[in-house]
């Protein structure tokens, strides 16, 4: 029996008296395609922050591939194979797209410990960085500064960086948020074609995307797991419809987006 890619056990997080995460148990198998949905303020991003180590839990543990990583820092977890994208882009805006990717590859392989040999002297790193750009069809933007790119393109860079970490677990926090609807298909195509070995958790509001992408859906309400199931089960669940799907702006099949 192989260990799950990611396990979260009894995770709690309080901000003072406010409990934003309550007793969350979550398991992602290898190659999982999981969607995390829930109303605004349900604690979805907080959960991702707890898994990646941006926040420390009040109690509970996070296990990656059978190894307890709860005590590790964000950077240590990242080096062990957890990658994420942010709801709002977190990029090196003053650097070129290619440099953004070289940094991700360089930090992953420890090249960035080198103070003496020029970045440009390592063709392997540059080529690999370009491979990720090619996979997302943004090689043409390689030499543009990130801040000069349209937001939709920046979202792709965000994903490319996460992929360059060669993650075992990938957490996508609303990858299409803030992207004009004419460009969302670009990002969703990319997400749909990601490496089948990576366990992916996606936070997404667009129910079309969720039902097409996910093999399993977790519904988070008020910091606790409300229910879990296949897309069919979730769609048929009256309670879920009541707390979430029935809300304005979340019509099933309507494709109404909001960021």
């Amino acid at each position, binding site marked *: 029996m192989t260990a799950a890619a990611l396990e979260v056990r009894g995770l709690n997080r309080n901000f003072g008296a406010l409990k934003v995460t309550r007793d969350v148990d979550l398991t992602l198998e290898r190659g999982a395609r999981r969607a995390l949905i829930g109303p605004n303020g349900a604690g979805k991003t907080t959960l991702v922050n707890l898994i990646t180590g941006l926040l420390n839990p009040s109690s509970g543990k996070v296990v990656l591939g059978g190894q307890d990583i709860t005590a590790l820092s964000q950077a240590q977890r990242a080096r062990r194979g957890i990658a994420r994208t942010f709801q709002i882009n977190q990029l090196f805006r003053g*650097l*070129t797209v*290619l440099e953004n990717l070289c940094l991700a590859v360089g930090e992953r392989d420890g090249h960035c410990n080198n103070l003496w040999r020029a970045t440009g002297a390592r063709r392997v790193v540059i080529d690999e960085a370009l491979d990720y750009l090619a996979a997302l069809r943004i090689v043409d933007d390689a030499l543009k500064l990130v801040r000069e790119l349209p937001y939709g393109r920046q979202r792709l860079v965000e994903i490319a960086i996460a992929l360059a970490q060669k993650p075992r677990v990938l957490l996508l926090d609303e990858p299409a948020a803030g992207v004009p609807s004419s460009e969302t298909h670009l990002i969703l195509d990319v997400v749909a074609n990601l490496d089948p070995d990576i366990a992916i958790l996606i936070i997404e509001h667009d129910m079309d995307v969720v039902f097409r992408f996910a093999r399993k859906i977790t519904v988070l309400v008020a910091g606790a797991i409300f229910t879990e199931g296949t897309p069919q089960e979730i769609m048929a669940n009256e309670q879920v419809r009541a707390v979430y799907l029935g809300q304005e702006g979340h019509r099933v099949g309507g494709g109404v987006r909001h960021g």
Partner: protein
Amino acid sequence: MAASEKSRELAATGARERAAGYLVGRHRFRPAEALPWLLAIAAFFLFPDRMTFGNQALIMVMFALSLDLILGYAGIVSLGHAAFFGVGAYTVGLLIARLDWSEPLSSLLAAAMLSGLIGFVTGWFILRYRGLTVIMLTLATAIMLQEAGNLRSDISGGYDGLPGLVISPLFGIFDYDLYGHVNYLYVLGVLAVIFYMVRRIVYSPFGQALTGIRENVRRMHAIGSPVHRRLVTVYTISAAIAGVAGALFTQTNAYVTLTVFDFDNSAKVMVMLILGGTGRLYGAFIGAVVYMMLEDHLSKLSPTFWQFGIGLLLILAVLFAPRGLLGLVEEISRKSWRRGRAGAARRLIWKGEHWTVLAGSAVDGAAIGFIVGFAANFGQAHLLSEYIASLPGRALAFTCFGALVATAINAIYLAFTSRAAAEDRGS
């Protein structure tokens, strides 16, 4: 960086190669980089009676370079960098005065190691924080060291300092002369070595990681970068270089007092760097030299109010050249590369109405002309009266000429572009 410019040219084919080529070739030495060094050597032959000034300028270049490494690349704002300059300065001073150790090169090494060590220890604590906290803690570092020196004035000599320090001949052969000729070449040599090292670091993957931390520390954590370790490493290196600059300061002046730890010293080096341009290596050169020249000239003009001139220049720099003088030069050359020389001035100022553009270019040309006129005067006038007498005429001529040329070029450019725009609309 001509990044976006290049990317526009990229066709579908060969896009990869060109993108890679940009990074592969970026760290190579460009011919223009020889310029500051040639100027420094030329100064040795042209102004043999100004070597004292030259020495101070080169030392400040090195000091500014050390600050650039942490401020310009890693984004650490320090208002106490004089701490390490001071430690280096006192290492040399104490070695001579208390231990009778006066060999210059080994003293430099000792200064580098001691200031590096103090940089490492303080950096370890300070760099856990960010922003204002870091500024205050760096400031406190310098003040604490100064007070420690004051407390043990029996060792440090207090504010009277350690006077009359005699340095052994360089390599045991070359004696330091009264005019600072040997010293100038010595300082220039050390600066060249330090600069080479800093340049390697800046273009290394480690240097890239530093800019990553400056640009977005949150993302650096997310991609697994050991941010604290990187910052402490660069802080230690920077401290060691500042220490070498301080050591050269003591060796050059043959004395050292506790004023090396002054806030003034920390602030001055930051002003120099901002003036020249942060995060671009040669900004330290331009900033330090321009500052020193202004200080030299303005303090002769008005011994009491000369700092007003520096302040004014800093305000102008922040308003019109937020990336420093070197940033301004890069901007001009990049823009003129893109759309002809005239586009430079146009894009540089405002994208507004034509008259604003013209007025802007006139002011800009005037400023450049004035600086050229000012610089042309430097080194020729030795007396205050001589200087004042010659300045107005020459500077005025250059100013008018600069304004005229810039305006004319822009007028021609605007005529062209508006016609092209009209044709575009017509088709």
